[in-house]
């Protein structure tokens, strides 16, 4: 994607396109309307960056010194190292799993497809907590393993612990788009390669992988941004990244904390810009569903392949669920939570589950409506506006939830009174989710926009269909599955969000993540586990209802 074409280029391009259309001025109007809309979205998403920048420049004299101090740079280095390692590992797992379930005769494909995306709904702080409970010295699983002669899994902390946990709970960011891409790709090339004698692994490397590159990089970028912004895992695993410093200094040295948050945001934007150069998302030539998709026989590799998928799902999904079930059970049987109280606390979760669903669904749909035009502009009319707007949207994903929440507090309370009216109401919370997680919809939407074949649009134009009609009747329906899967990602993230929820939700508006937090805060793990299971269940049901069921192409 080139950033050299200016705004003028966009207008020229639109008017040239509209030549055969019935209303000559219409495309131009739509073009400039689109640019204005995208600019407005960019301003909205830039709010937290602006707020951080203004705060960071108080006592501006110390700014450069502090940003380049050894402590800050050391933490930054650790954040980058961890994020890079997690991205590579998550991409490896995501791509392999996607290839296995789309291109091979691995047994139980429907089950794997249903289970592989689910770890994304598990909040990573719960993931880390559970993994420590299970695998650290004296933990349930470690004790079991030692009975089989497996030594203590010592050193399950620091870099290694953070790396394992973050990889396990973020690989779906890569898996989801890549498996969708594999399912959509014509297998004819791979088929020909095979007929010409190439081995399965050879065709995977030389044909399938390059074709899925855009999806892999897009997913990997989300993993990277998620990891640099994660706090829960590195805190529990005691790995000293930038977010840990941001957190521990937030009150006693808020200037440092704010500056390092800004540094995180700048890092994110730098990575996004670098990624642009790397992944040129071209339009696909000829996407279609194959009547009979290509399938490799795994042969003697079948057991090994099946075991590795089972290993991933076992660690990333079954283990956390099992630990939660065990804690809930223990609360009933051994602690002083009687069975009747157990059912009361389960019933108490219905309301939070509804609240969570409403806020997250609203955020998911709003995010798609706001960022799809940004993706559309960036892909279809490459230029400065689209490039800048999409970088800002993506960068928001790396900011701490606390920074986003506080910036919204600032802008709503210092703005006009009608803006102040939405303070501590649901719309403001939804807006925080949108700014924080819009990046996920944005990346997927860009792929969806790119996947509308050029020839379809060409055909429509030749037939004299107007630009607006082309958008509504042809492009949008083709993009819809992709846009909905972007909505699905936002949905899952919003459901587990905590820091902004605690500060911005209307008072008394309890969500499941708040319930989990309340439980762990007071060391009532039975309650926390129940809420966590409810979160996994609600999230699974909603994503299935709204996204997976109707769009088995997922992008």
């Amino acid at each position, binding site marked *: 994607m080139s950033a050299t074409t200016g705004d003028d280029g966009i207008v020229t391009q639109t008017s040239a396109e509209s030549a055969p259309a019935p209303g000559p001025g219409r495309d131009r109007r739509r073009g400039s309307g689109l640019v204005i809309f995208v600019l407005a979205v960019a301003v909205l998403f830039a709010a937290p960056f602006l707020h951080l920048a203004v705060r960071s420049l108080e006592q501006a004299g110390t700014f450069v010194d502090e940003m380049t101090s050894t402590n800050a740079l050391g933490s930054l280095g650790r954040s980058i190292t961890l994020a890079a390692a997690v991205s590579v590992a998550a991409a490896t797992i995501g791509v392999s799993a996607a290839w296995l379930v789309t291109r091979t005769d691995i047994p139980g494909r429907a089950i794997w497809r249903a289970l592989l995306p689910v770890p994304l709904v598990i909040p990573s702080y719960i993931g880390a907590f559970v993994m420590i409970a299970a695998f650290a*010295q004296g933990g349930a699983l470690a004790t079991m393993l030692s009975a089989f002669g497996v030594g203590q899994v010592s050193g399950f902390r620091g870099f290694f612990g953070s790396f394992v946990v973050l990889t396990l709970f973020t690989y779906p960011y890569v898996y989801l788009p890549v498996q969708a891409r594999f399912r959509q790709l014509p297998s004819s090339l791979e088929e020909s390669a095979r007929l010409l004698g190439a081995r399965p692994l050879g065709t995977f490397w030389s044909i399938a992988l390059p074709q899925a590159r855009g999806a892999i990089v897009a997913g990997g970028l989300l993993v990277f941004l998620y990891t640099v912004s994660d706090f829960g895992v590195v805190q529990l695993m005691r790995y000293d990244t930038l977010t840990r410093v941001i957190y521990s200094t*937030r009150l*006693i040295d808020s200037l440092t904390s704010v500056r390092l948050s800004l540094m995180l945001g700048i890092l994110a934007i730098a990575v996004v810009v670098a990624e642009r150069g790397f992944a040129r998302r071209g339009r696909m030539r000829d996407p279609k569903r194959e009547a009979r998709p290509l399938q490799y026989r795994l042969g003697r590799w079948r057991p090994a392949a099946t075991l590795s998928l089972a290993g991933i799902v076992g660690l990333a999904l079954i283990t956390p669920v099992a630990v939660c079930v065990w804690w809930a059970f223990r609360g009933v049987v051994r602690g002083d939570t009687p069975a009747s109280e157990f059912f009361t606390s389960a019933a108490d979760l219905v309301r939070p589950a509804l609240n969570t*669903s409403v806020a997250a*669904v609203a955020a998911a749909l709003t995010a798609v409506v706001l960022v799809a035009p940004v993706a559309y502009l960036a892909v279809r009319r490459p230029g400065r506006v689209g490039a800048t707007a999409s970088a800002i949207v993506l960068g928001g994903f790396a900011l701490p939830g606390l920074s986003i929440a*506080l910036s919204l507090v600032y802008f709503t*309370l210092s703005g006009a009174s009608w803006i102040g009216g939405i303070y*501590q109401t649901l719309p403001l919370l939804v807006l925080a989710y949108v700014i924080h997680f819009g990046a996920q919809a944005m990346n997927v939407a860009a792929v969806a926009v790119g996947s509308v074949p050029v020839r379809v649009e060409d055909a429509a134009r030749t037939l004299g269909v107007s630009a607006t009609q082309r958008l509504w009747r042809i492009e949008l329906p083709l993009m819809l599955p992709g846009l909905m899967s972007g909505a699905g990602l936002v949905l899952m993230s919003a459901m587990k969000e905590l820091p902004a929820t605690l500060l911005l939700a209307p008072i008394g508006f309890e969500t499941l993540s708040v319930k989990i937090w309340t439980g*762990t805060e007071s060391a009532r793990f039975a309650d926390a586990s129940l809420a966590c299971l409810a979160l996994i269940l609600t999230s699974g049901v909603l994503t299935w*209802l709204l996204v997976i069921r109707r769009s088995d192409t997922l992008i």
Partner: protein
Amino acid sequence: MNRKGVAVLAALALVVALAACDDGRDPLTIYSGRDEALIGPLLEQFADANDVDIDVRYGETADLALLLAEEGENTPADVFLSQSPGAVGFLANEGLLGRLSADELSAVDARFESDDGRWIGLSARQRVLVYNEELVDEADLPESVLDLTDETYSGDVALAPTNGSFQDFVSAMRQIEGEDVAAQWLSDMQANGSPTYADNSSIVDAVARGEVPMGLVNHYYNFRKLEEDPDAPSRNYVFPNGDVGSLLIASTASVLASTDKQDDAGMFIDFLLSDDAQQFYSDETFEYPLAEGVEPSADLPPLESLETPDIDLNDLGSLQETARLIEESGLL
């Protein structure tokens, strides 16, 4: 989106719309850094008994303090309940806290309130050494927290250097034992291979599992752990003779300067200091009640027997200095 999807969304929207309707009275708004399980029942009791509507926002103490600072005079909050004096010091510095009445201040020993009446202590928790009784004999534990740097305890003592209570404890050590002793203690603990953990709960958990034999925490975490898992081998040890290792840290209440519900807020603070409420702290949260005349839980040594020095935990500059010392020690 298909029809069922729309139906699901419509149903959800309706539920929320109904929930959003309230009776329109202006409630007393409380920001609470103390968690709901701990204090929720007490707040309900107040609302019922006095026919006052209350709105409570729960959150982490530090996050709520930042929120209050960002909201400034526009805050809807009337009262702030804090885990520790540190966060309150931050808000007092910003000039956001009002002065409490002399009556309220007289209810509590002066060492548990601010000199200028910006906050008052409600309950206190004690710093203790939690240990695993299967791994450690109580008789082998030292007289003072300062002795934990001995090589006998090499690699054995878990710390939570990012935790607010640990930082309060270090601030106290600086004030009582002097800057040099505190700095030396921190770097010796680091040199002694003390493992670090995220927070008090993680340490109590790790000790109960046997991952580490002992750790420095607040006293009530182990009470809760044992409530959840009565077989856990974790026990609390209190350093004797008013050692700085057994410091008491108050949870506090403050009234926001911007409140227009001074009367309700005052009534609420009085309620929190009443015998009933203080008894609740003692019975339900295992904390020390701070209002004079209420006894702590039978499992705890009496408050008067604890020689806790009068120190200042809400000086922000002092907190930053503590954070700097901890960072320099390499424990973070």
